[in-house]
């Protein structure tokens, strides 16, 4: 059975460290990647991740299992990220492109694509996606990350970010519109109105 977090939170409220380890094992990757997408810095993302899990344990007794743990998890995580950003006196998010250059360029790209031309095309498309996401306003970027990358439902995104359902819809739509506008340069999106 997959670890969903609810049971672990209840057990953690009684000081169960094994439950904490289970939760950590199940969610530390997700926490790290989310923070990484926000900060583009491995060390900050790791700091935020460990702070998150400590906070979850410390406040486990306050957790109400009425809602989904995932939503609670991302809410706390998002708040932590925002607090960290504020502490860092950052008015805007760091330059996305530099993050991409630093981190993602080392990853295998287009490995599965047989022909060099196809690989080049896929690489180009991904480069455009990176650029495009980097250029989105913060609010749009967050909803896009939560929707497309973290696979949250609209209702969950609304809860995590403290927005109305309608605001989420509009932000996702605007985010996609902006993305498509940039991606029109790619032949794969050619002919699409933004």
């Amino acid at each position, binding site marked *: *059975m*997959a*670890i969903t977090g609810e049971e672990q939170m209840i057990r953690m409220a009684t*000081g169960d*460290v*094994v439950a*904490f*380890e*289970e939760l*950590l*094992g*199940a*969610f*530390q*990757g997700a*926490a*790290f*990647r989310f923070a*990484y*997408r926000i900060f583009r810095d*491995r060390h900050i*993302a*790791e700091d935020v*991740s*460990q702070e998150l*899990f*400590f906070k979850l*344990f*410390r406040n486990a007794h306050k957790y109400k299992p009425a809602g989904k743990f995932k939503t609670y998890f991302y809410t706390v995580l998002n708040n932590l990220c925002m607090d960290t950003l504020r502490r860092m006196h950052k008015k805007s998010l760091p330059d996305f492109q530099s993050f991409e250059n630093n*981190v*993602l360029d080392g*990853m*295998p*790209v287009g*490995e599965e694509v047989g022909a060099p031309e196809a690989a080049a095309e896929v690489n180009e*498309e*991904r480069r455009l*996606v*990176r650029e495009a996401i980097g250029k989105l306003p913060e609010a749009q970027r967050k909803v*896009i990350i939560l*929707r*497309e*990358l973290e696979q949250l*439902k*609209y209702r969950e995104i609304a809860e995590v970010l403290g927005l109305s359902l309608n605001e989420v*819809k*509009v932000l*996702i*739509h605007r985010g*996609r*519109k902006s*993305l*498509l506008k940039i*991606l029109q340069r790619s032949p*794969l*999106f050619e*002919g*699409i*109105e933004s």
Partner: protein
Amino acid sequence: MISDEMRELLSAYVDGELPHTDAARVEDTAKRDPRLRRHIHAYRRLRDTLQVWDAEENQLEPSGRVRMRALSRVQALVAEREAEQQERRRRFFGGGWFQQPMSLAAGVLIAVTAGVLASFMGGEREGPTFAVRSDALPMEPVAAYGDFATPVDTSPLDVFSGDAQRWEEGALDRVIRNESEGILIEQDGEFVRWSRRAIEADRLIRNIDRHPDGRRVDIRETKTGEQPNVMVASWMRGAQAVRTPYEGVVALRLGAAKGTVPATRAVPARTEDDSRWVQAGELNDLHDIRVTKGAAVLTVAGELWVEPVEGGKPGEVGRARVVTATTWIKRGELVSMAWANETAADPSAHKQWALRAESIVLGPKARRVLINKSGRDQDVLEWMLATYGAEGVVSSARTTVAKHRLVIDRMVRALERDTGATGFAVYDSKNRVLGTELFATHDLMVEFAPRMLAGYMLEADGRVRLDKKSGGAAEVEAAAQEFLSDVLPRQVKRVVSVRDARNADDWPEGMRQVNLQTPSGSVVGHGLMVGDQPLHLSLFGE
């Protein structure tokens, strides 16, 4: 021109977030409007692109520091809370106004509880025994490795220095180095230090990605002078389960690779309550563990020392035996080694073995290809599901970090049920379970485990790529030939040929390989049978 309102609807439609009526409206309009269809296509394409990009980014994992730091903070918090609670209790009971009646009540309660427990656990429980149990690797390494092990007379050699030349020349005596900094240190997910001497010599050590799936496994590239080597350390990762034949308190000590192993679980008794995790930070410490006869003990491969303890107290170690296994791919040759070390209070009684195990194997993926070609066996599946299905061990789902402990727990439960069975799970460096190997008896595991592990190693090194070949038997055969032509020149003693794998001459007579399949026909593993008796079950990790 598509209105903004419609675009908003389209975006939600692609996400499946529209109410039924609105979704129907979008679909209806899309049937008539090709621009709308193109837009839907574009949104879907965008989503797919993001997800492909995300799949790559999902390879990013935090380093072990997150876990270590969070855990140590939590443990400190728990200790703090407990101390506070004790202080409160002390103040409360220290008042004296009802101290005497409470002491009496507590005494009665303890006596009753002890009585109940004693009757529940049985009065015939033996006291601590002073036997030695190593991990799942052979207790008697020379005998266990049998005819494919080559004990050699020894002279001093530090295997961790990278000075393998002398080992290859037959100089095999060595001193086990217990200083953690002398072996391997992991920083930011990279193994940055090999040995003190290696640092001084500025030898190149680095982790490399070589797995066909792009997953990182514990393969290290080293240099001996200018000569590049690849080493796969099977003892660095992986877990093993053994059934302890002992009863009582033993001390448990984790080995010397500080910082490189995940938490190890010793499950000494029949209930979860009695189990405990030993953290990597507690390496080289002794831990008292009470074991019940027949209980399953899980450990990182080759890194658990279970030592006898006088009176259940650590520190009076009579003997210790450690077996570690490593596989090197050196100068194009696959070399498996096993190290056995038995220490004694009397230094003159100290014994060491260094074994070179030479065999060639097919890794799990190569075996899977064979299985796909070798028919199905419903009986084994039913047996397996009946035996292990309830514990959830049988699964074809990808096992991720999230399931790391779950798999171990399930394995323990499975082992608890089946008294004869034993097995181990193999992990990659991200703690993903690559495979779970269960054997009907410990002896069988001893016989097969080294080769099974070597199979994982070969695949990790990217030398077995049978799974990459899809299509007909000819392609599989070609891949098999490629594999064999790669393997044959390596001076191996025996080769289990792909073609003859089902009747390999080193298997017991009548042994056959069978499929393990779900009722829907998906192959989830394979088994080895002699007649109707399943001997070994191998479950794929993904």
